[in-house]
């Protein structure tokens, strides 16, 4: 049985609905229609009265989830695209993220953000917002890169008593397949996706796969590149990153978000300040370019990091 990343997300929601009567789903077109990407396909039929089509009101969608969570429900909110969470931004960072700290009342909500670029999607259907949300206290930011993580981490998100921003990557929805869900790994732990000894690539989400391909390319040149999949960008598993850098002495951080600040800067700042002496070469980072995300595939391919420029960066890093 081969399962896609997208199906894993559906299955996790199925399982959550089955396990816990307090779970409900709220989002645009997610009921009968099954969602713009079909991540909730059939769920409204399988769980009548638990899956709701919302008005186009991202602010109110998050606000209502917070209110519901206060009452013991465990809402899963689907944003149709991560990009539209910008209009629910205030409720996420100021209402949901502060509730527990302010009032001692936990806020168990899961916000699914279909994230990242795909060809032809353009500036408003391609964004990666993990770095924005991670800046704020009170949120957990998950960025699954595999079918297994998509399943287990989503299931776990719904159990966490805090607001979770679940950044699922649209590019992986149909492309990525696995034979099953395997075993869960704890949230907050990074994973050595590929062991190596010559350099470490720290990455997450869709860029994991580009990085793995680059590592494979470099194997042909005789290099063993270790690839660390962050899995969650907040909390970030600094220990695993440092342990890898301790082995390799070289660090490249790859992310699909915009270049200023964000995950890649955070990883480099941690490694540089906490394990400076482990570095044999200056740490490097690779992000998308500092413009909106282009609609035309020719431009889009050049805007985000690719296997080719990850490889090139690695060669540069290894030459140092």
């Amino acid at each position: 049985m081969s399962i896609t990343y997208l199906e894993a997300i559906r299955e996790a929601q199925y399982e959550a609905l089955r396990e816990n009567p307090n779970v409900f789903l709220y989002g645009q077109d997610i009921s009968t229609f099954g969602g713009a990407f079909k991540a909730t396909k059939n769920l409204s039929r399988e769980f009548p009265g638990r899956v709701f089509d919302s008005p186009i009101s991202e602010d109110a969608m998050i606000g209502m989830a917070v209110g519901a969570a206060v009452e013991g429900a465990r809402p899963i909110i689907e944003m149709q695209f991560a990009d539209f969470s910008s209009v629910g931004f205030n409720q996420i960072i100021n209402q949901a993220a502060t509730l527990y700290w302010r009032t001692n009342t936990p806020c168990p909500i899961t916000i699914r953000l279909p994230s990242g670029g795909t060809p032809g999607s353009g500036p408003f259907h391609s964004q990666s917002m993990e770095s924005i949300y991670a800046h704020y206290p009170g949120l957990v930011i998950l960025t699954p890169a595999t079918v297994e993580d998509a399943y287990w981490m989503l299931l776990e998100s719904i159990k966490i008593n805090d607001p979770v921003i679940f950044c699922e990557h649209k590019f992986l929805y149909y492309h990525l397949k696995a034979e099953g869900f395997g075993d869960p790994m704890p949230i907050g732990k990074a994973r050595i996706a590929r062991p190596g000894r010559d350099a470490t690539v720290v990455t997450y989400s869709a860029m994991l796969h580009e990085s793995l391909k680059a590592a494979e390319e470099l194997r042909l040149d005789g290099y063993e590149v270790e690839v660390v999949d962050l899995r969650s960008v907040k909390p970030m598993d600094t220990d695993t990153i440092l342990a890898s850098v301790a082995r390799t002495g070289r660090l490249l951080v790859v992310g699909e978000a915009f270049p200023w600040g964000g995950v890649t800067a955070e990883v480099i700042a941690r490694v540089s300040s906490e394990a400076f002496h482990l570095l044999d070469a200056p740490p490097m980072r690779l992000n998308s370019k500092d413009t909106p995300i282009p609609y035309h595939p020719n431009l889009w391919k050049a805007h985000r990091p690719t296997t080719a420029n990850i490889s090139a960066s690695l060669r540069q890093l290894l030459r140092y």
Partner: protein
Amino acid sequence: MELREDYLRTLRCMILSRTLEEKLGSLYRAGGRIVGGVYLGRGQEAFSASAGIHLRWGKDVYGPLIRDQAGRIAFGEPVLDTMRTYLGVVTGPMRARDGNIHRGRPEVGYMAMISHLGSLLSVVAGALFARRLQGRLGDTVGATSIGDGGTSTGAFHEGLNMAAVEKLPLVVSIANNQFAYSTPTARQYACESLVDRAVGYGVEGYSVDGTDLLACLETFHKAFARARAGHGPQMVVGRLLRLGGHGEHDDASYVPNTKKYEHEGRDCLAVAQMQAQELGWATEAEIDEWFKEARREVDKAQAQASKEPTPDPYRENWRALSTPGLVEGMNE
């Protein structure tokens, strides 16, 4: 007669609220003791308390806003919680982390507003939504309020529209006190009356003289009954005037001294005292006694809260998540 009882209960809440707020105002002006700003509900007590009195602490859901001290008291919030919050002691519901008008106890259905106007409406709606989903809505009702200025926010629109689509038992008070900080309503909306918005949301609308306690009580009585009976959100617009500055730092010199606000500018508490006497429901002496009781209660709360500890940064856990295992060990 039931109305008489409600009336007197509400009047006493108004008296307590006014007394408490006068204390807070004078503590603020004296300086040094109050933490943060002081934003009072003077002139809005009749309207606010008339909503609050219809709510049951621990059963209903309430999301009060800036000027709802009277409603909070009517809902059942102890004066001590207020005092503790304003004095910034750790025993208050917000543990000195957040302040004053932001206080609440979500675990008992008493929502704690954030500053961003309009954003609480959907939260109250969500609480009701969850209860219905869990099959324990029963005769629960929710209530929240907003000012004339807050109606211009997208959050208010989205929240009310969503509540209407979900047909939730929610009463939304709009306290039209003619100003949003210094901004007069002419710069805030262009409709005749904010109650004209009800039909566009498909909710039932009421307009009431917010300076008249009897009218307020009767109107909210209808609105809450309709909400509880399953007729969806109810919008009650109160015409009144903010009797004071936006906050105690503000002298409201921008409020023109015109006839325009003559009626709205009546002090609802003075009006209610007269009304109660005219109706033969209370004597001046009784009312005086209630004021005295209120003062005792406020003084007691102040005395108690004043003895309690302010927060110690070294004892704070500095954790924004409820799951300890997910907290990052940064800066430690």
